[in-house]
């Protein structure tokens, strides 16, 4: 049974701007799914519609249905969706800058049991040993990678069943990207947590997910198993850089139009 189902979701910003139209997707229990697409395609919008964070940006789901588990969550507020086991790691980290990393974790823990809290916290520090070193300083002064780790760790404190990550590798060094992808994989494997991953780094993403959706201009244009997508020539051209190494100095100025045959 799929954990998360989107049917024909349409989002309008500011009452006038149609950002995504008729997006449908599914994430199975314990599955790891990627959502790829170029800039402005509507990936973040899709995630926000799932986590219920469109309100502050004056966005609204105007059509469609979102189900998590066996119930519709469209009418729930953001915190209730988190309570239901859905968590969203926002693009651009957005940790609580004036709090220490440890307080960031405290703030995100929802339960009452101190023992459970300590257990979760230890788990986060086990995944991200670096955070433990910076435990005293304000999170706002952490480096980009550390902040990303903190954002993921903070999300884990809510004990989610499905974690949505919006561009976790943004601005991270290659080593850290590997590390973070490794940890995401580990979390998925160890805890059976479903993962919905939005990424630009398609090559690395398609290596760890089982399925992926390709979204362009607010619409899903292609979906399927990671292997299938990887072998699609268009995907290779536009997302994977053709062959492994592009000769950047000699790329063509004008390219053929994309033609998705989803």
């Amino acid at each position, binding site marked *: 049974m799929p954990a998360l189902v989107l049917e024909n979701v349409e989002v309008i910003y500011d009452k006038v701007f149609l950002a995504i139209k008729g997006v449908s997707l599914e994430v199975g229990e314990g599955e790891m799914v990627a959502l790829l697409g170029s800039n402005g395609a509507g990936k973040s919008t899709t995630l926000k519609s799932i986590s219920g964070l469109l309100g502050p940006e004056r966005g609204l789901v105007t059509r469609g249905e979102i189900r998590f588990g066996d119930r519709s969550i469209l009418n729930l507020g953001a915190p209730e969706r988190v309570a239901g086991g859905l968590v969203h790691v926002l693009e651009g980290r957005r940790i609580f800058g004036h709090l220490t990393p440890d307080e960031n974790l405290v703030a995100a823990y929802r339960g009452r049991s101190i023992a459970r809290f300590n257990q979760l916290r230890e788990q986060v520090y086990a995944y991200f040993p670096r955070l433990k070193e910076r435990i005293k300083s304000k999170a706002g002064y952490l480096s980009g990678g550390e902040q990303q780790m903190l954002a993921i760790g903070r999300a884990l404190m809510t004990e989610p069943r499905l974690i949505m990550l919006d561009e976790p590798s943004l601005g991270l060094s290659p080593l850290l990207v590997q590390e973070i992808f490794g940890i995401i994989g580990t979390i998925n494997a160890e805890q059976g947590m479903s993962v919905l991953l939005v990424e630009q780094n*398609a090559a690395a993403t398609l290596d760890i997910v089982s399925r992926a959706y390709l979204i362009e201009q607010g619409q899903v244009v292609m979906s399927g198993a990671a292997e299938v997508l990887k072998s699609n020539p268009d995907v290779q051209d536009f997302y994977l850089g053709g062959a492994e190494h592009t000769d950047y100095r000699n*790329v063509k100025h004008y390219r053929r139009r994309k033609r998705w045959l989803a």
Partner: protein
Amino acid sequence: MTGDNVLVCDNIVRRFGGVVALKNVSVAVRQGEIFGLVGPNGSGKTTLVNAITGFYPPQDGTITLDGQKINGLKPFRIASMGVARTFQNVALFHGMSVLDNILMGRHIFMKPNPLASFLYPWWAQKEEIAHRRHVEEVIDLLQLAPARDEHVDVIPLGLQKRVELARALCAEPKLLVLDEPMAGMNQEEKEYMVRFILDAQDALGLTVLIIEHHMDVVTALCDRVLVLNNGQEIAQGPAREAIADPRVVEAYIGKPRNAA
């Protein structure tokens, strides 16, 4: 391609409270080259750039631009001496359209004053329009025409980064500093961006200092790189060689996970 040094940093030290973000970093960027600055997160790359552009003046060491000492100068002074930059977290003026943002890049050539705005005489109009011409050229160069009249905060991140680049280019800088211009882009957009940087460099004869985490881009684009770790240099030299250095691999690149 190489010539005199445009930018020379000598033994830069910068501390934040107890943290030493830069420890005696020295670097020289030559006229016309693309110089890469890489290193793990928090290694001090942005701090170095901030020191150069005047935001966090170094506590020790000197920075010279074309032979002139610039450390201690205010950012806007340094800017008018011919250093333009983009920011790691896009720093556009979100209350303005794309066009106005790019026009802002011409600021150092205009002398804004309330009286001129008030009377707005024909020569001021002509001047505005002349600048506008220049801006349109840059817009063409970076293929921003379709987004020209949009508000910057509704265009996608990739475009925003391009607008920021356009704004920097409009200042006709001697030295262009780019802080992670390709973060958050997919393959296609990266290719475009590289193309733009190369085109701009061709067209304007720029010297570029670039921070980037995409190794494929760095190796393709940069003539030389400096690798920082914990605020210290761990390697410097031609891109491929510096990146192959075992210390760099260990601290920064990591072993390829699956060699496939």
